């Protein structure tokens, strides 16, 4: 019988975590997601705060929160209101999505850097409350109060 000279093959070159670690990581990720959704429901965080949190280290699990789930975590938001907002979002973004596919839309899709922030701009627009308000007091006869820039968008 020939003796093995190489270690037994392991998937991904042995970089997979141990099953026990996977379970721990999953539980931790679920807890982070649940904490944020509860805080949104208690009005301690806004949905924009949750989206912004993905930029912080250690908040990668938030990328998997569904947008429908996030919107409906807010008090007063049911399926109809959430689906209406998501319908406008996908229309603005030019995405062919139906209510049955809204579960595929998550924060990770929203903040995907390849879209260069277009989805985030649409998200902000869809969730704006005072839709009829003028951009700034005295528009169009007055200049904007401050230069409208965010970070370095150009």
């Amino acid at each position: 019988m020939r003796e093995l000279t190489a270690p037994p093959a392991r998937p991904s070159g042995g970089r997979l975590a141990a099953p026990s670690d996977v379970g721990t990581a999953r539980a931790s990720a679920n807890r982070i997601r649940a904490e944020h959704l509860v805080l949104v429901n208690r009005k301690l965080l806004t949905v924009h705060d949750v989206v912004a949190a993905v930029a912080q280290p250690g908040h990668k699990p938030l990328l998997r929160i569904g947008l429908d789930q996030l919107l409906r975590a807010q008090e007063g938001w049911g399926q109809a209101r959430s689906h209406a907002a998501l319908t406008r979002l996908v229309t603005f973004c030019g995405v062919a999505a139906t209510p049955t596919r809204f579960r595929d839309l998550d924060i990770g899709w929203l903040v995907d850097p390849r879209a260069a922030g277009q989805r985030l701009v649409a998200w902000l627009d869809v969730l704006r409350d005072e839709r009829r308000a003028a951009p700034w007091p005295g528009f169009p006869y007055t200049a904007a109060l401050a230069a409208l820039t965010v970070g370095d968008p150009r």
Partner: protein
Amino acid sequence: MTTQPRAHAPARWAGTSVPFAELARFGGTPGFTTTDRLCPFYSGMWAAGSSAFWTSRELAEQRAAHGLARIPRQLDMPLEDARDILRAARHLGPWLAALGVLDQWRTVSAGQLAAFSGWPILGTPEPRVVAALWRLGLVDRGTLAPGMLPGPATHRSLLFRPSRSESFEKEIAPLLSWDQQVAVTGGMPWDFRRQYDRHNLLASELALRVAEFCEVGTVLGEKLSDVSLLLGGAPSGGGHAADLTIVRADGLRIAVEMTASAGPDFRTKVEAWARLLADKSLASSGLTVLFVEAAPINGQTRWGNSGSLRAQVYKTVREVVRVFPGTGADRVAERIGVVSWQQWFPGLSMATREFTRLEVDRPTGPPKALWERAGLLDIIDVPFTPHDPAAATAVVDNASMLFGTPHWLRAGRRTDLWPLLAQEADWRAGLPFPPPARPTRGIGPRPAAVRGVVGATRPPTRMRIEVADPPPQIVRGSEATRGAA
């Protein structure tokens, strides 16, 4: 023996008549220039009064049910088809532009709609996009003399106005991004009030002619000529408003009031403006007022029995200015002008050289020769040194964000609104993006600017106000208008 003009009614000066086709043009829509459009003053549109015959979708259905009317086939579309038309990307530009014009100017002809918006399709017979707006109850269709027009002329005299319904909130608002909603309504609620057909059509026509033949910054409709807005405040909502506002390139605002009567209401209006001018200096408000007398040419004086309407207008202005003289350095008389439509436009397809300078009469002279001529666009006749020049000219840039302004005047710098939304969401540091999944694979630092496969951050195409290929337009400053428009 020559008749001495009365002090309050100077002799009507006659300018140098010149056909529109020979005036230098600053822009326009090919096929829908002033020479192409129906003249609302000289074309005999108002023989039956100052109102057109209007038909809303609701009224048409009611009449059709009782056998009083038949809805034309091109207008009789199912509701869902009309919604599909508005959802289609290729129709977005025309209908957004049409609603923007109607909201700001109230009543326009098909030709004026095409001229303002730059979309020639809006001036053609029964475009489907306008039929869809009518089907959804957003606009009313008006005609001047039903049954008496030859077929080809029908669409030239077709009028549109916003319909009295809640369709905008139900059908349109959910389709619009904030930028688009501001471009259509100026950031105010959709408005269907103040529908005076002849008055509104003349105001729209004057605005188009000024934009086409005069060197101005922009022109704004009645909705954005609210007195509170003009002074930089919030709109008063139903308060006193001019019929249109002409903004000079240096930011001087010329609030224009069209009038076909000189009764007590007119005096109240003049007093309100004079009081305002006396209270607010020119340097701080940049405000001047112009009264354009535009009585029907075959009509009679509508109020009073002394002299013509024009004389009454002059007399009223003279008397009111005497009550509100202003200060020595900032006289109200220097900020109020009066002119007749016929002085600027002496006939069909005719203008005067004086019109291109907006030359008017002002009560600035000595008592025996009170009325003096001045060009409102002349910086020597009406000098303007604002306290804050940048703030005074901001409106020229901001007007380029509005669909209601003539499309060739929208050359100013537009302000992106989405950063305002990001600030409200407390995303001041920038749009949130996740850290790189594999930082060690990165080559160098990530650029500070947000960039992706679609370029730098901008709203998605469907949310922008430049929604399609720019419509064709006449080159600014062209003299090629001698019959070549």
